[in-house]
């Protein structure tokens, strides 16, 4: 098995075997990243393909300051965001001035399989989905998200709140249908 450095060198040289090895090493993880931001699996695969193309063409500029998977994840997120930005432009996000945030409770998602969780996120409106991914999962704050998406900080907050409430509703629906979802109590 090739080391990460050997893979990088091979990819920079244009060695197709090394490129395939790198793709196979990270494609599954990156597929999930793309699915979270995309509206469908097809969109996710398009973003995955475009993202890896960028990875291979710009790998020579990778200086090893961050972990390779972190660097690739950033490229995938940017690629996915670029694909969604057009939609955001056509359907600009609006501030939701009043959001009834339910009291935050401890939940567990252990009872859900990955496809169900992805389906829940993909069912969110475009703006909500992006902000939720960036805030809740990637760990960016609202100021950073506002800068990335070209929206106000307040819009980011309101989109996040809406995403959160929508997800809780979906979890409740699931709970009602199947009786329980792990140990979660909403």
């Amino acid at each position: 098995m090739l080391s990460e450095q050997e893979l990088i060198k091979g990819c920079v040289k244009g060695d197709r075997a090394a490129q395939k090895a790198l793709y196979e090493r990270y494609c599954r993880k990156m597929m999930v990243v793309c699915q979270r931001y995309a509206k469908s699996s097809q969109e996710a695969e398009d973003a995955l393909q475009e993202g890896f193309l960028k990875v291979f063409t710009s790998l020579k500029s990778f200086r090893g300051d961050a972990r390779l998977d972190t660097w690739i994840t950033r490229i995938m997120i940017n690629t996915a965001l670029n694909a969604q930005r057009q939609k955001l432009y056509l359907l600009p996000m609006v501030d939701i001035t009043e959001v009834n945030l339910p009291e935050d409770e401890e939940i567990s998602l252990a009872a859900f399989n990955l496809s169900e969780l992805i389906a829940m996120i993909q069912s969110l409106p475009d703006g909500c989905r992006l902000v939720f991914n960036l805030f809740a999962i990637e760990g960016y704050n609202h100021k950073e998200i506002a800068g990335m998406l070209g929206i106000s900080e307040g819009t980011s907050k309101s989109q996040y709140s809406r995403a959160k409430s929508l997800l809780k509703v979906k979890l409740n629906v699931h709970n009602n249908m199947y009786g329980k979802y792990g140990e979660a109590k909403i």
Partner: protein
Amino acid sequence: MENTERQKFDNAWRDAFQQAEQNPSAEVWSALDSELTRAEGGVMKRRVVFYQRLAAASILFALVFGSLTTYYNLKQDTSVVNEIANANKSTNETDNTIPDQTIKQDEVAENEDKDELAEDGSRLPKSGDNKTNGNSIFNKSDQSAFIAQSKKDSGGTDEIHATEQGTRQSRVNAKAIAGISTQDLPSPEVKISGKLRDVTIVRKLPAMPASFMAESRKEKKSGEDLWASVGASAGNYSPQANFNSYAMASPATGAVNLNNSASSNSYSQGSAYSVGLNLAKRVSNHWVVQGGLSYLNQSIGYTSNFATVYAGSKSAFVADYATLQQNASTLTLTNPYEINSVNQFVSLPIQAGYLLVDRKVGWQLSTGMATDIFLQNTLTDKSGQLDKYSAGAGDDSPYRTLSWSALMSTELSYKVGTQYRVSLAPGLRYTMSPVLKSAVGTGNPIVWDIGFRFRYIFK
């Protein structure tokens, strides 16, 4: 507030996706593979176009350089041939006084004496009846000289043996056409005696340095993308021009009877040095583009025996034919004295380099062009008796303000520390246009030099 939220709801989602993986369809790699192939094809196409242009430029440069070199060599050879022709002219005139009738009458004697001449080891050409076989490669004067010699040696005879003569003629013609005398040919009677022995040839591979062994041939790229260097070079300057001829001879000037005898030093060798700055950028793994700015100084020494009389003083005269004509009335003959002529330029080179070796030791081949801006020419009398004469650039100057030079060089470098290299760079500079505007007696200077450079690598 944000932190609190993240600690519960968000963390649950983050944890759920922390190690999550899902297989994409196989079509993603197939499509990606096609995209990569297409992208590589584009890069390859661009590279091919670049290499094609580079090859075309190199061939063009080689053709131009070869043509010019051949032209000047031929020109030089022609002048030598002419001199020889002139020197032999009087001799030929004497030989040509032998009338054609004499030749016809003496042909018999010529044929009769061929074998004797061959035995004497004579390399004089022999031909048969030129009028009948039409294969003669000798001119009439050669025949006359030869016939006269034959006649002298044999004392003359009128007997003709037709058969024998024909045989001899064909044999002699064959030898003459091949341009080989009988002494040069091995005797057919010589036989090889003794027994042939088998000889085994053992081929030995040359010893290979350990540094070329497979294990040690790992890629050790320098990782250098941008660097600047300062350097100086010195070498041989050949102006490719007849300095003495236009310094000492002016056929159009009747006012001064100039000496035309000194022509042995017409193609003098001078010296050249340059100092400059270079900036280079790597554009691909092996290719480098570099440019810079440098000061050139090219000096040449030659002898003159006249000077310009100017306002009661004498000064060394500018070596330009056109100016020489215009100022002929101000010239005066002097004792021969040594002149040092110095041309100064600012040069702006641009070169493409190919890195053959890019490790601790580097080896680069470069070729390109330079724009040379003429600054000044200074003529100095080495004895100090005459005043210095300087001519700058401009419309009224005999020197071209701008000229272009073709550059070829190689650079052998050694990395010192992480950001420095020192290098030796032998090179050739061929000026595409003469330094002087006048087309008479001017040439395209060539400089062979070797430079030392100190390179700083930007990180």
